[in-house]
């Protein structure tokens, strides 16, 4: 094999692997990416039921209802719109009324949200950056201490 052929092998192999990887990435980005929405986004844009999304906002004051077993329902609010969320499982340590939360799951046909995982962020001054940004964008006044950071707990 000549030097040129050998280099051809190398370059050909490299291009093949990169092309395969690029295809995998494209397909995966199309299929497995989850969009983030606030309750107001959903009211305005209308997210189809059954599409996997992340719903973010604050846990509505006085909205948490513990049902049978591990069943639980609560409201996610951005102070303008509320969405009722049902979840079956153990909530993260930092889940509190009035605190930032992200629920991942899908809308049902009756406008409620079924979550299969709930992420909470903690501490009096904290809320998830996405939530804080969306709320600020909607003119909701946040506490002076609101800044992104600290720790998240995620449960499935």
């Amino acid at each position, binding site marked *: 094999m000549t030097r040129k052929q050998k280099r051809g092998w190398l370059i050909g192999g490299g291009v093949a692997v990169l092309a395969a990887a690029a295809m995998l990435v494209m397909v995966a980005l199309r299929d497995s990416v989850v969009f983030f929405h606030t309750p107001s986004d959903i009211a305005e844009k209308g997210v189809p039921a059954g599409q996997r999304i992340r719903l973010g906002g604050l846990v509505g004051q006085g909205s948490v209802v513990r049902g049978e077993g591990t069943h639980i329902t609560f409201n996610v609010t951005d102070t303008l719109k509320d969405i009722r969320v049902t979840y079956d499982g153990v909530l993260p340590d930092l889940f509190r009324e009035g605190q930032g939360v992200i629920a991942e799951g899908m809308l049902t046909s009756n406008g409620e949200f079924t979550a299969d995982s709930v992420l909470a962020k903690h501490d009096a001054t904290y809320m998830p950056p996405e939530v804080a940004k969306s709320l600020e964008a909607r003119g909701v006044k946040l506490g002076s201490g609101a800044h992104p950071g600290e720790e*998240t707990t995620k449960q499935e």
Partner: protein
Amino acid sequence: MIVEFGHFALILALLVATVQMVVPAAGARLRDSRMIAVGEPAAVSQLLLLLVAFLALMHAYVTSDFSVANVAANSHSTKPLIYKISGVWGNHEGSMLLWVLILALFGAAVALFGDNLPATLKGNVLAVQASISVAFLLFLLLTSNPFERLPVPPSDGQGLNPILQDPALAFHPPFLYVGYVGFSIAFSFAIAALIEGRIDAAWARWVRPWTLAAWMFLTIGIAMGSWWAYYELGWGGWWFWDPVENASFMPWLAGTALLHSALVMEKREALKVWTILLAILTFSLSLMGTFIVRSGVLTSVHSFAVDPARGVFILGILVLFAGGGLLMFALRAKELRIGGVFSPISREGSLVLNNLLLVTATVTVLVGTLYPLVLEGLTGDKISVGPPFFNSTFVPLMIPLFLALPFGPLLAWKRGDWLAASQRMLAAAVVALVALVASYALTERGPWLAPFAIALGVYVMAGALTDWAWRVKLGSAGSEEVWRRARNLPRSAYGTLLSHFGVGLMVIGITATSAYREEHIVVMKPGDHVAVGRYDVTFKGAAPGRGPNYREDIAQFDVARDGAIVSRLAPSKRLYDAPPQPTTESGIHATWRGDLYIVIGDEQKDGGYTVRAYFNPLVRFIWFGALIMFIGGGLSLTDRRLRVGAPIKRRASPVAPVPAE
């Protein structure tokens, strides 16, 4: 007083680093050996000054000096001593101080142990290393001064985030940083080589041990972080493809590639240009990791102490060094001679495949990590890229990598015999086939692909042993001869064997845990049973308890197997005093077959508790595999050839390097 002393030492370190950055590099250019010689004492005194600064901060933590803003914000007088010490790096400022300390440590190590390096190369390496120090010391002093005093000291501190108050996490950051920062040496050597326009096998022999050391510590650091997340975050996962995890994983992948390409360069003088590029990219990924973790641009399960304003500074550092390094590469790489020729089927060829797949995998992780950021910048859409993305991009790239892995060591340099290697791999393939059939026979559920993945892990392990078996002539020579050969094999051969074996173990552990995990979420009252795996778990009740700086509800579980109690687990829910934050402590009954993992949730109105119980089969293999990889790396590092043979004295012409062709 001690605090001001520490602050002063930090400023002095900046001055010394500036000198170290300028003088030896100028000396190397002007061929002035006295100027080059400044690098050594400068590197050592920079290390000593930073050590003083670090110890001063530690002193403030241990004595709970709350007049220091950093201590007040992150410590508390009732915190146990070990967490007062680990609290030093459990926050932004302190961890960045640790970062520069380790950077200086590596620089000083080159100064002290680099006697037989060519003088100009050494001068340039120390100068580049110092330039990184200067950037990060400026960052510390200008934006993140750990020694800032408070005008009115509070009576007590705010405490350390409770989930960080944990033994594994106390040592996770130092290990991780030794890994991250260790790649700076490879970077400095690469830039120095570009400055000189000259690079040879001796260069690779120099860079490899440093890269190997960094890689080892990064391996064990990541494994520790994963282990910590497993038992502390309370949901039994060990890897979440979270931005902060990816931040440490990308340099690891690139570093692994670098380790292998440096091998080609050392042995065959091929892949020079590529190795230099990889060295620059690996450290750039380390810097990007620091940026991701420290800036908080990406939401993450474990990002602590973040501040967007500081992110801009680190982004600047990242752009400066990654961009500068790449620019220099673009300008000078042409001048490096292209090395040896090899056929696609050869040891070199297999290492090129290794590099190709590892680097492509790094890129997929990079895309998945940064895509949300880019998309939000472009369209304003907020998305999250989760495990499904990585499972369908990263994992497929690992399959050919692991299939090809055992062939590498079996192929000869320059031109290998594919057929002969395949024949040697026959035994390993048979073992893997047996493992495949056995996995199908032993498991009742789970995805149909899982047994194939387990067989792949077995194949990698058997393949690693195959290479060893052929080298010691196991089966074809007498036992005495085998023993003699086994003893005479270089330690680096055992290093390769162990590291590859560890990879196989890890593949098995990952597959078994992901595919055959059992999960139960139930509400239990005292006396209730639940069957998890082969265990019968009985809830005995919960009682309040009190620790040094927290209150807790401790639950008691009896774990029985075949009617006999094998363990009593006491998972708990803690509420820390400062900051007042709850944590979940898991109860784990660990065996080689798998872990029984129990956490409790909230108390229900009727006195029952939500209980989550998992059986995670073979999950220990993951961290044990990483530990074996670490040990393998250590064995290679102690190989005589790396220690003594590296830079041969006569090669080290003091000045006047051969100009590039």
